[in-house]
């Protein structure tokens, strides 16, 4: 195997092991925490199924018996782990639908929203960062700093409402809420994207300024390379080594942090699923959602590692000393 191939394999193996560890830890913790919550789980599940107007002790007892909630906790957890090993996530306690189907549906929603928001943040932020770095302290740089401060200061909930008022209620261009079509994705993505773009712009600017001042960029200029190629081949690529891990972190934050925006725009995503699962004590859905989120973080981190390795193929410390 080439040293580069070995490096990729190393990253993947390390992350895979991490994934298994995180999955185990998260699902056990999730189960234990839900069991420690106050209140009768059977009652909450019955209320989730039938609405609490219709739920009394008898209905709760019937749910308890149906789901075996009176069994010892370790038995319930053991059953879940056994099913998980067979790649069976079970059925939702509330809706009785397969958990994989439910969580899969919400996961697609979240990924769509997060990806579009991230692209928006990247295009806006990186573009502004590169422009600002051309003349540190110049007008564009100062405008960018103003943008960073203002978008960070507006809470997504407020920004979302403002966007709905302008683009939906006043101009009638886009639907205020909805899920499933491209038009209804625009406003939630616009709510999330600009907020993130501020920091992306900041990080890009600093990275570009630093790279621009480096000797290899000066050398590229000296050897007569056109400005466009200097930026594309040397500045952007080297700045990306800093930016990509940062975007990875933002992706993770996005995936976990879209609850408010999802609820504001009635967008069906994992945040929505998590809130319902906690409220209704739907342990299998909660465990599966937490599991998916945890694994997603591992996947994003892996992608970042691989991407950085590709962007910056210089031998790593271990290989260099070999």
């Amino acid at each position, binding site marked *: 195997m080439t040293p580069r191939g070995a490096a990729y394999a190393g990253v993947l193996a390390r992350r895979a092991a991490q994934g298994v560890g995180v999955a185990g830890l998260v699902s056990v913790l999730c189960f234990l925490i839900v069991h420690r919550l106050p209140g009768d789980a059977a009652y909450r599940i019955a209320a989730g199924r039938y609405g609490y107007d219709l739920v009394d002790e008898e209905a709760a007892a019937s749910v308890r018996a149906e789901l075996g909630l009176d069994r010892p906790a370790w038995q319930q957890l053991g059953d879940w782990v056994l099913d998980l090993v067979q790649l069976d996530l079970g059925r939702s306690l509330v*809706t009785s639908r397969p958990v994989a189907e439910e969580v899969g549906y919400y996961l697609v929603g979240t990924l769509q929203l997060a990806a579009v928001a991230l692209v928006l943040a990247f295009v806006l932020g990186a573009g502004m960062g590169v422009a600002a770095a051309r003349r540190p302290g110049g007008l564009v740089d100062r405008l960018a700093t103003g943008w960073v401060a203002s978008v960070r200061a507006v809470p997504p909930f407020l920004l979302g409402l403002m966007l709905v008022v302008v683009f939906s209620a006043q101009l009638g261009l886009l*639907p205020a809420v909805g899920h499933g079509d491209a038009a209804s994705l625009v406003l939630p993505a616009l709510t999330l994207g600009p907020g993130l773009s501020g920091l992306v712009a900041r990080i890009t600017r600093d990275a570009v300024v630093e790279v621009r001042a480096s000797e290899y960029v000066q050398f590229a200029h000296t050897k007569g390379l056109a400005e466009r190629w200097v930026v594309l081949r040397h500045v952007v690529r080297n700045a990306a080594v800093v930016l990509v891990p940062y975007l990875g972190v933002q992706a993770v934050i996005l995936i976990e942090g879209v609850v408010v925006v999802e609820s504001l725009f009635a967008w069906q995503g994992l945040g929505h699923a998590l809130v319902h699962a906690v409220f209704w004590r739907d342990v299998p859905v909660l465990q599966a959602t937490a599991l998916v989120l945890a694994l997603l973080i591992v996947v994003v981190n892996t992608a970042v590692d691989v991407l950085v390795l590709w962007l910056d193929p210089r031998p790593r410390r271990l290989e260099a000393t070999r």
Partner: protein
Amino acid sequence: MRSPLPLPTAVAVVAALLTLSACGSGSRDGAAAEDTLRIAGPFEVHSLEPAADGEVFTRLQVSETLVTSDIEGELAPGLATEWSSSADGTEWSFELVEDATFHDGSALTPDAVVEAVERAAAVEASPLAEVPIEQIEADGSSVTFRLSRPDLTLPAVLTHYSTAVLAPAAYDADGHVTEVIGTGPYEVTELELPASISTTASPEWRGEQPAVAKVSFQAVGRPESRALMAVSDQADVVFGLEPAGREQVEGADGVRMESSLQPRTILMKVNADHPILGDERVRRALSLALDRESMADAVLREEELAATQLLPPSLTAWHPDLEPLTQDQDTARDLLREAGWSEGSGGVLERDGKPLALTLITYPDRPELPALATAIQAALAQVGVRLEVEVTNSSEIPAGQADGTLELALIAKHFALVSDPLVDIAAVFAPEGNDWGVMNWHDDRVTRAIDALLAGGSESAAAKNRETIVRTAHEELPLIPVAWYRMNAAVSDRVEGFVMDPLETTWRLTDLQWAS
């Protein structure tokens, strides 16, 4: 050095693909067509089982029950055209409507009805589970219920959405509903749980075709978003607006508010066997301490929602002429003094060296409850009662009832889950107590009146019995009423004929017309 694929290009490609997949997975047509009635409300549909989220499908008139109720709450024919009981009230026969067809083209048969109703009876949360059914059988063109003891409320219970009749093909081998195949004027064309449902007028419908041919329903959780949809013509009927949203709609053109009082009361459930609360004078004092009008005005933004008695005036038969519950703190203090409570330290009354301190439990499922609980806390402090408010899980209330530790609970109780409030009243005032009703309180007059109502009899005797129940509860206050509820909807001027059904049996879409 090899030039990498510019990162922005790669990311943009991924985003474009994801967006396209978003378009592909969509099942809702973005801007509704001219002839589609667009409904938005807070109701998410997580399950197709009639006992779970079946109310959305009966409201959308996709599925039907044997009996339904009219706008006055009176029983009306549904899938059964008429019904009768044996002289002893233990055998009920429901004659099915002729030529009713399920949306899959199969005929409505008595066997299909028996299958659906038996499934409902097996679900503990369905009101039908409370009916002492021995057997349900198909009998020619009718369905017969045999009961182990007389129950005159059966037709009313059969108005409940959990008893909706679906086609046999709607169920899978395990008995789970996979598709809502009903008999109503509308059939489901698209369904994306939990938030969107589209229906169209069914060619199988036995009656006249409705003027509104297509309906789309969208669940929207945030009330702010719903209000914006109402004022920007993105929905024709929007349910469940909060006070700020109502004001927004009232100030907008092309949309109006419709409302009706819901048969639901916010009340304090009292442990009548408690050392402090067992004294009727203390319960009356707590009631007199409350400034219900200010509380309703501040929290529900409508002074008229202050409860003057247990049940709202919309339940006419259960709303006799009684002295309204009002605030009178002086009398409250006198009553507490009579009950042996005297000035103590820190403004809290004391008896035998012990402070007049109580705990009230409530739950956040309805956001107004914690707010009202703290208003009650402040009102009681003014007459020397120290109230601790615990906002917790709603299951703590039945748990506290079961182990006897509950003192006070602030709950929002619906009194007409089936069309006849008697079913809920009988449960609420059960002598042994009820999770969402009285605790350690019974009164022989009330028990006798309920038994007499359940056994039938003349209307004049029934009216007297109803008054006995409400008046006794009004005087002894095992449940202290606080406020009533109003449900509302913003309705676009595109639509005519909208009527708000207080029991929400259906949304009466077949009565709607497009404005000319």
